[in-house]
């Protein structure tokens, strides 16, 4: 039992954080918004240059062969920065799914292009009403009842669905062309389930990052802003609001990290933990962003202050890769149908055999 990240894992995360601190500040976000572009090429090139696209793809297929624990801190950093580009969806969810289907030649070819950084891949999954970043993706992986299909860019009509989050590009598919699945439903089942779990987990990690960012923005403002001759952060009401949020964050974080470490177990225990992580991080982000608005006063209600970017991302991610109700039911399935008790914290189906 050792609940620590390795030095390498923290170093990778620090590198991503550093890069995003340089290239993904709110001023950068605003610039992107003004020009109406989907991606900042310089930032995206820098990120792909780190080789992160293949993070979760096995080494023998040209990836880095890392696991969810290696990527979870990266996803957290993306949430913290409010990253517009689809690093998490592409590298964290779509490409490992594609790799799992690479027995099919079309999938294998696309994977090579995606690992080279030529294209991104978007995933259309029944858990999500929309497909994110579908217009910029080189191809779509579409999960349906009959299996997983692969649609090249342009082969399917996309209807843009405007999100309140200016950096989320959401689409519905106009009409599905008939395409032979790259994997049938039963063959793809495990990979699709795992893709969903990665989606939920990395969404939780992003929410955790968003929550901490909202607190940090509010703390910075509370130190600066003076009223009654003192910084507002010296008033206990303000302190207690922010401490309350920080406590929520502190008790979402180890759940997210444990969920990452257990994701590969793919059993009722690991799924409940992922869902717990999603719920806890979602609630922390929601409270953090609302609190940050309050701490900023009218500034917090303005377009000028950056809090709203994070508030909107938190709102958007709240029902992404499963809504709260869905995730609560997965926790319920573990609570009501599996053994409980102090010795069951790290239980897995493998350990029970």
């Amino acid at each position, binding site marked *: 039992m*050792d*609940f620590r990240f390795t030095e390498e894992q923290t170093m990778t995360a620090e590198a991503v954080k550093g890069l995003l601190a340089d290239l993904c500040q709110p001023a950068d976000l605003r610039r992107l918004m003004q020009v109406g572009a989907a991606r900042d090429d310089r930032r995206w090139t820098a990120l792909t240059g780190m080789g992160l696209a293949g993070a979760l793809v096995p080494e023998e297929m040209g990836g880095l062969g890392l696991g969810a624990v290696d990527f979870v801190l990266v996803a957290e950093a993306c949430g913290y920065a409010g990253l517009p580009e689809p690093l998490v969806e592409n590298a964290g969810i779509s490409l490992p799914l594609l790799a799992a289907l690479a027995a099919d030649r079309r999938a294998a070819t696309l994977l090579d292009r995606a690992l080279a950084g030529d294209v991104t891949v978007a995933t259309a999954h029944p858990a999500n009403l929309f497909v994110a970043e579908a217009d910029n993706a080189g191809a779509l992986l579409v999960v349906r009842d009959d299996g997983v299909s692969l649609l090249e860019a342009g082969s399917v009509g996309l209807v843009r669905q405007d999100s309140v989050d200016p950096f989320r590009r959401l689409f519905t598919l106009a009409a599905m062309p008939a395409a032979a699945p790259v994997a049938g439903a039963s063959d793809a089942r495990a990979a699709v389930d795992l893709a969903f779990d990665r989606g939920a987990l990395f969404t939780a990690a992003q929410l955790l990052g968003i929550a901490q960012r909202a607190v940090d923005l509010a703390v910075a403002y509370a130190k600066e802003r003076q009223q009654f001759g003192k910084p507002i952060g010296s008033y206990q009401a303000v*302190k207690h609001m922010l*401490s309350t949020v920080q406590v929520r964050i502190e008790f979402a974080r180890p759940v997210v990290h444990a969920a990452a470490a257990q994701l590969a177990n793919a059993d009722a225990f690991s799924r409940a933990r992922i869902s717990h992580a999603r719920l806890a991080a979602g609630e922390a982000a929601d409270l953090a962003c609302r609190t940050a608005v309050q701490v900023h006063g009218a500034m917090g209600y303005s377009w000028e202050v950056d809090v709203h970017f994070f508030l909107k991302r938190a709102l958007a991610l709240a029902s992404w890769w499963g809504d709260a109700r869905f995730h609560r039911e997965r926790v319920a399935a573990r*609570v009501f149908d599996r053994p409980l008790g*102090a010795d069951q*914290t*790290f239980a897995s189906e493998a350990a029970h055999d």
Partner: protein
Amino acid sequence: MDLTYSHTEKAFRAEVRAWMEANVPSAPLPSFDASREGFEAHRAWERKLAEGRWGMVTWPQAYGGRALNLIQWLIFEEEYWRAGAPLRVNQNGIFLLGPTLMEYGTEEQKTRFLSRMASGDEIWAQAWSEPQAGSDLAAVRATGRREGDDYVLDGHKIWSSRAVFADWAFGLFRTDPASGRHKGLSLIFFPLDAAGVRVQPIPQIDGETGFAEIFLDDVRVPAFNRLGEDGQGWSICMATAGFERGLMLRSPARFQMAAKRLVDLYRAHEPECAPETRAAVLQSFMDAEAYALSIHATASRLIAGGHIGAEASTNKIFWSELDIQLHRTALSILGARAELMRSAPAAGDVGRWLDGYFFSLAGPIYAGSNEIQKNIIAERMLGLPR
């Protein structure tokens, strides 16, 4: 990150489990607060634990421990709570003073106090609070006057848990009369049966005696009984409090077992329960789990040489709030029966939940109130101005 148990850890769990199964009393012991008899029954249990070298598994072997790490301590606690073993009557000693003694005590002090603490021969109370020094602990007025090789203690301590039957107390005294606030305080031990000590029980919210006032009138103790340097009392107390709030005082297993009982209670009453009750039950489970995971993360960090920091404050808020929510949920499931005393024929298991509910209300008060913890988080963790 490896969230699986090693062979050694599994074997250790099995060993603890076997011992608990063979030794945990089959019927619950009478409360240690209510009577001398209950207190002594708990002391006997401490002795039994010590005979099996289970008193404090993290302590060095020389003091009756097994020199195990904090993950193994957590395994021990999990098995302890799983077995439904008695509450630790000496918790102020073994969880608070013990670790502090090991850090700040001289060899002679460790030899004198630790083994008898671990064996239950000497049971400890904490005498810090005073009528005018609660949250503002630095306002203590009790004094320790140096006379040759002795201190002469005077003052009025209050809210001292288990002091009614305990053997010793560790108190905070002003030993420099010219000092103020955090300076000039010392941590000094005194026997509760020493000449000049009067212990006055205080009934708690449920009518039972759980804590006491301690009046000290020219109580003479050797200077040997001072822990650390003269005037170092405040920083030592804060180290103790950090350990108390941060880790030892409330091991996660306590809440996980309570959450398990809550799920059982919910199942027995499911048809009568509202949907929000179900959500509250699931929330209690999740919060207990989150606390357990957080403590495992902290334990791993400490094993690798880290120090307990602000998590002492975040932990204390989280477990105390979780405890209240868990018990409120239980009472809401019990509905009209929630008000029944243990003695009521229709009570069944109700009394236990009610006791737990009352005690949960103390959680945000003792060990440093939650409001004070929020100040600490805001100032030390978030860096907000004082």
